Every structure is written in C-alpha cells, then in structure tokens.
C-alpha cells in the first residue's frame, strides 16, 4: 500500500502539536490488574479464530480473576480455559469449542456438571452477537433482525426478544444492545498513545471496541508514535478509549496472527486430548499457565519443547 499523503503528513508533523494522551504502555500483569477486575464483562476473541488474546486470558487465570462474564463469537479454546480455571460465571457466545478438534471439554463439564462451578450461557448467533455489540456502539437500545425467527435461541436468551415490527407488524427478533466493561484485542501493531492497527478478518473487533467502556490492547509490536497515524484508516478504534497497551509478541499463540504467525494446530489438538479429563486439564493448566510467570516464559517453554522434539529421533 502506498501510504497516502506523505507530504502533507510531514507538514503536519512538523507543526509538533502535542498528542492528546499520555503513554498507556504497561505490563500485562499491571494492565489486567488495573482494568479487568473481578466481575467484569469482557470481550475476548473478537476476531473469531484469529488473533485471540491468549496471553491476556492466561494472566486473568494467574491473577485468579473471578465472576467474569465472557463475551465473544468463537473463541477457539480460550473460553474453555477460563471456564475450566473457574474464572467465569456467564458466557455470552456464538460457539464454544475447539475449531479443528471438536467439543470444548471444560465448557461441557461446567454446563453439564457445574465443574469447577456453574456456568450460565447465553447463546447468540454470530450475527446477533455482532448486532448486540454494534447496537451498543451506536447508542441504539437494540437492533432488529429476521435471523433466528423460529429457532430455539430466543427462548433461552433474554437478550433476543421476539416481537413485532413497529413499522408493519411483522415478526422480528430484537437483539438487545450489549456494552462490555472492557474489550481486549490482540493486534499487529500499536503505539503507546493507544493507536492500534488490526488487519485480516476483523470479526466483531470494531463493534466490540466501540461498544466497550474501555479497550485493552495487546500487540505483536509497539511502534513509535506517529507511525500508525500515517494510515489512520487502519486504526481499529479511537485511541481515546484505549486504557492500556501491552507489547505481547506471540501473545495470541496458538491462534494465528495475519502477517506474524500461523495457527499452531497441534497445540490445539494436544489441548483437546489433555483437557478431556479434569485432571488432564489441571495438569495442562499448570504446565502452560499457572506454572509459567509470563508470556516470555511461555514462549521459552514452547521453544524448549520444540527443540527437544526435534532432537528426539
């Protein structure tokens, strides 16, 4: 892409008018501690199977966060881990599973057996969840849809309200707006003022950022100020809403990040096998989350295993 308007930009920058914000850069531990307290309603995994903020979720688990409401369309084992770790009271979701391997075992145990604790589930379709977030970002109390008419989802989700159109009396589902406390996005690049570039399939990331009270960014790279605003169309959300920026290279592993990393399919499959039993899940959690102080140590462990596996004949 040819960056537009380089000359005018250079001119604007030469004016040196100061940005509206202080640095928001911080550590993962600090960001999660300050901005995602117990009981938060939090969006994670807004880009469906890509750029899932696993590192942020692992920090939530390490800090023993409790009573969370998780919001997300398809979180590809991230919600399963938080549920299995006992952090979650409620899940507002389109699909919870392991996209390449099958059912979500911790999710099953929570719903079927209240293990480790009971879980309330509000089932949305991916469209209705997107509309719920979009409505909040537009200040609309709801958005009507003709999707899900006749399905069983509205019978079990009080935020999918069957009714009739005030315009012509035809049946509709009114999707109630949903404003999270915090939306956590993993992005490719961010600066310390909170500008963040996200590209690839966007899922409901834009809607979730606009709906939320605050946005927490984890990024593959934190770049100097002035770089990302050269292409403000790529910026995913108003920096003014961003409360924290954390540099977290590989922070979406094992999910893919367009331009950075492929999906680690085998990691998903191993999780699927090991989480089948409660004991297996707890051992997995100890190995990959609780027994690992931070993202750097996680990647060291991953690298050590890779080296070891290559050395094995």
């Amino acid at each position, binding site marked *: 892409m040819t960056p537009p308007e380089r000359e005018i930009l250079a001119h604007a920058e030469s004016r040196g008018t100061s940005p509206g914000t202080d640095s928001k850069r911080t550590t993962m531990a600090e960001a999660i501690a300050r901005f995602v307290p117990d009981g938060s309603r939090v969006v994670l995994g807004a*880009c*469906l*199977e*890509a750029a899932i903020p696993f590192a942020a979720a692992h920090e939530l688990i390490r800090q023993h966060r409790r009573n969370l409401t998780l919001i997300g*369309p*398809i979180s*590809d084992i991230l919600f399963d881990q938080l549920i299995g770790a006992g952090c979650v009271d409620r899940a507002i*979701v*389109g*699909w*919870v*599973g392991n*996209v*390449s391997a099958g*059912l*979500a075992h911790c*999710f*099953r145990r929570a*719903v*079927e057996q209240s293990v480790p604790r009971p879980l309330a*589930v509000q*089932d949305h*379709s*991916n*469209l*209705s969840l*997107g*509309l719920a977030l*979009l409505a909040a970002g537009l200040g609309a109390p709801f958005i009507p*849809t*003709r*999707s*899900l*008419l*006749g*399905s*069983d*989802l509205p019978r*079990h989700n009080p935020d999918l309200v069957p009714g009739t159109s005030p315009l012509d009396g*035809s*049946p509709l589902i009114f999707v109630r707006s949903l404003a999270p406390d915090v939306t956590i996005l993993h992005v490719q690049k961010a600066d310390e003022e909170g500008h963040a570039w996200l*590209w*690839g*399939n*966007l*899922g*409901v*990331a*834009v*809607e979730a950022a606009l709906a939320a009270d605050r946005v927490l960014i984890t990024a593959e790279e934190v770049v100097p100020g002035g770089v990302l605003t050269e292409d403000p169309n790529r910026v995913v959300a108003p920096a003014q809403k961003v409360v924290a920026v954390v540099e977290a290279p590989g922070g979406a592993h094992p999910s*893919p990040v*367009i*331009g950075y990393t*492929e*999906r680690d*399919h085998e990691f998903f499959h191993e999780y699927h096998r090991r989480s089948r039993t409660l004991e297996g899940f707890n051992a997995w959690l100890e190995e990959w989350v609780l027994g690992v102080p931070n993202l750097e140590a996680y990647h060291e462990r991953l690298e050590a295993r890779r080296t070891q596996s290559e050395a094995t004949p």
Partner: protein
Amino acid sequence: MSPPAQDYSPMEQMIVAASREIADGEVVFVGMRMPMLAFMVAKRLHAPRAVAYFECGLLRETLPAKLLYTLADPAAFAGAGWATQTTYVLGQLAAGRVDVALVGGAQVDRFGNINTTYIGDSRQPTVRLPGGGGASDFASLAGRLILMMPHERRRFVPRVDYITSPGYGDGNSWRERMRLPGGGPSALVTTLGLFRFNESGEAYLASYHPHASAEQIAAETGWPLALAPDLGVTPPPTREELSIIREYDPVGFWTGRDR
C-alpha cells in the same frame, strides 16, 4: 465428468455430492470442514465464478492456497477479495444477497432442522455442544441451504432436541409463518445418500450413494424413510473430484481417511 473413481470414502462421496449443488456464479456462505471442501471442488470444476463468504469477515473470489483448519487461517486471508467485519458479511446474508449456504451439524430431523447446542433437555443436558455460531444465521437467511451430515441413527432423529438452525420447523409452511426470509434446506447430503424436501418441508431420499442402499439408510434414519418416485443412485465421485479433495486434504484430516 471424468471417469468414476474406484476407491473413496463415504465422506468424500458426501463432499462431491454437496459440491454438485453449487451453481456457477453463485454467492455462497461456506462453513468449516466438509462445506469448505465441497465449495473447493465446485469452484475448481463447475462453478469457477462462485464466490465464498466466510463468517469471520472474508470474501474470496479465488480459492485459498491450502487446506484451512479454520476460516481465519492466514491462508484464508491471503488473496481474499474483501477483509472486513462479521456484521457486514452476515449482514449481506441478512439483506438477501447470498444464494446458498453450506452447513453441518450434530443432529438433524426430517424437517431439516439442525441442532448443534444441546443433546437432551437444555436445562440438564447430556451433552453441551458448541452452539450454532453463524450457522443459525445461514439457516435463517440464505437463499437456500445445503446440509451436510455423517449418516448415523443417533444424529438422524425424529425431532431435534433444540432448533439451533431452523429448517422447515414442523412443516406446513412453518418458515412462512415464522417469516423466515431464507428459503430453507434444498438438500441434505449425507455419507449414505442425498435427501431433498417436499412441499411440506419433509425430507425424502432422492438418491443413495453407490456404496449404500435404501435399506441401510432406513436403518440409520430415525424417522420413516420417504423415497423419491425416481429414487436413483448418486453418481460416484469422479477421479477429478477426488483429486481436488485430496490435493487440499492430502492426509485426510477432514475426510476421515486417517481415522
């Protein structure tokens, strides 16, 4: 068509039968796994101008370069024609601008309703399934729907425990009564045969696959089987069709040849 292949799996037969349901130039909403492979076969052979929407926020006019494990793999993005928001791609579906969608599920009944949410009572389920994701929207809103399902009696139930993705409800113009805008299922393609739906929304067997029989299908189906007057045999996969499936899924990850 190229000559029929001799050695293929029931999954591969299902995929090619589904692929033949897609016409050239159609706008197609594609789900993961079998639906994706069916679209790939169609696009390479008889529907080169078909375009594919993925619910994660992609539109592709060309095929991805390799097997997708998820619809948001980097290979799904590379060369996409539009990378955008889920609300926009599903919004175009809701606006009536998608011809056909392909989906799978865990349970199906004779009216083509799909359950991917709960097995058993939703208040005390035997199995909590992953949920519908975008499939509920496909079923509600697409011009028509192609269902793909491994044929097992536990999946082919008289009445699904929960309607995640609506087919024809309980029949008798149910979709019209519900005012569902999409056309509903036009085909239910299984590992044993191909069903179509009559005017009251009931599935009838239109053809059985070469390796199966109507009797076997009746035994694996949880409702009294209705047969098409011209019940026939599904044309087997051609070598060309199979070679495309195997090009994308060389180890049989999705088609079960490795299991």
